[in-house]
Each structure stands twice: as C-alpha cells, then as structure tokens.
C-alpha cells in the first residue's frame, strides 16, 4: 500500500499495521527533513506531489519489490505540503519472515520512489531564498 498524506505520518500506527504472526522482523526507513543541504541552512521544505501518478507508480514499485524480495507486507507513506525540520517526509516499512528480504525490499522501495514518483521538493533557506531540489544523485541510482 502506498499513500500520499498532507498530515503528519503516524509512525506508531503504521508499525501496528505491519504486525503479522508470520513475520520475523520489520525493516523501516524514515526520511526526515534536515536543516542543511549542499552547505545551505534549510528552514523548511515543501513537497509537491502529483498524487494520481505517484500512487500508480508507487504501487508498481511495491509490486516489483514483492516479486524480487518476497515478503509479507510493505507500506509506504509520503508527505505532501509544508514540512518543518525533523518532520518525517517518507516512511517505508517491510515485514518479512527473515531479515534479508526485509532489508533488501525496503532499500529497493525507497531508492525507486526517489527517482520514479512525480514528487518535487522546494527548500526554503534561512537566508530567505528558496529553490527546487534537483535530485541528481538520485538519478544515478
């Protein structure tokens, strides 16, 4: 399941949703808003998401992860809107019988989401300037 949300990500509730008697473990990645990027002090960050395609493309990513690294359940939630430093921008959880599939599927999902989903972020800097982030590093994944 993938969800785009304009509200705080409820990480404890998500963890509960992942509970499965057949699961031997849960691998979670949380992406947070940090206060610096490329040497510039960041004040806050704005995510623009084209939800219809972010969801359909995200579902494809989850299906690929399920096929490559069989697991019990995967959930991804990505934020839209204005976020402050320390906020959780993206949450990926994968529950599986064994840790190897959970780690690999979680890594695959977050890597693909960064480069494939129509999501953009605009950084607002402490000095009052702002700019769209070009995820050049992500393009090389």
């Amino acid at each position, binding site marked *: 399941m993938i969800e785009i949300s304009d509200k705080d990500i409820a990480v404890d509730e998500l963890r509960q949703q992942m509970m499965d008697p057949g699961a031997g473990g849960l691998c979670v990645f949380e*992406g947070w808003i940090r206060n610096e990027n490329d040497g510039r002090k960041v004040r806050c960050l704005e*995510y*623009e998401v*084209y939800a*219809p*395609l*972010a969801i*359909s*493309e995200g579902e494809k990513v989850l299906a690929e992860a399920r096929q490559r690294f069989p697991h019990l359940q995967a959930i991804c939630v*990505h934020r839209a809107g204005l976020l402050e430093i320390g906020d959780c*921008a*993206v949450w990926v959880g994968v529950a599986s019988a064994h840790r190897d599939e959970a780690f690999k599927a979680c890594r695959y999902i*977050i890597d693909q*989401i*960064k*480069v*494939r*989903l*129509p*999501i*953009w*972020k*605009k950084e607002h800097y402490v000095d009052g300037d702002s700019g*769209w*982030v*070009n*995820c*050049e590093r*992500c*393009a090389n994944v």
Partner: protein
Amino acid sequence: MKTIIVRYFAMFREHAGLGQETLRLDVATALDVFEQTRSRHQSTEPSGHCKVAINDEMADWDSVVNDGDTVLLFPPVAGG
C-alpha cells in the same frame, strides 16, 4: 496540427507562469511537445532527467501524442 493540453509541474509551472495550457502544435512525439513548450517558455532544462506522462500514464519521450491528449511534463523528481 494537434490540440494538446500541456500540464506543468513544480519548477516548470513556476517558469511558465501557469499550470496548464491548451496549444495547437505540429508534433508527433512527447519529446516534440517538450521541445516546443521549452522554446515557448525559454526554458533551458534538458529532457535528460525529466519525465513525461500522457493522459495520466507514464510515457517515454518517443511516445506518440494524439489530437486531444494531455501531456504532463515533469521536471527532475526529488522524492524521499
């Protein structure tokens, strides 16, 4: 000539000063739409890291566009 609805997102929308426009264009592919709108709005962004969708389906730059299609132009994405 084809009637194409072009939608712009993020930096493309800010650069064009609008989110959507309907244009009469002499185009065959999604790349043609990208190039013609890039010229129209004096954008210097290359297609390399950009993405395109047609009628809400992800597409390739060489995908054929038809009369009445909606072409969505996505600047480099940066989720996560």
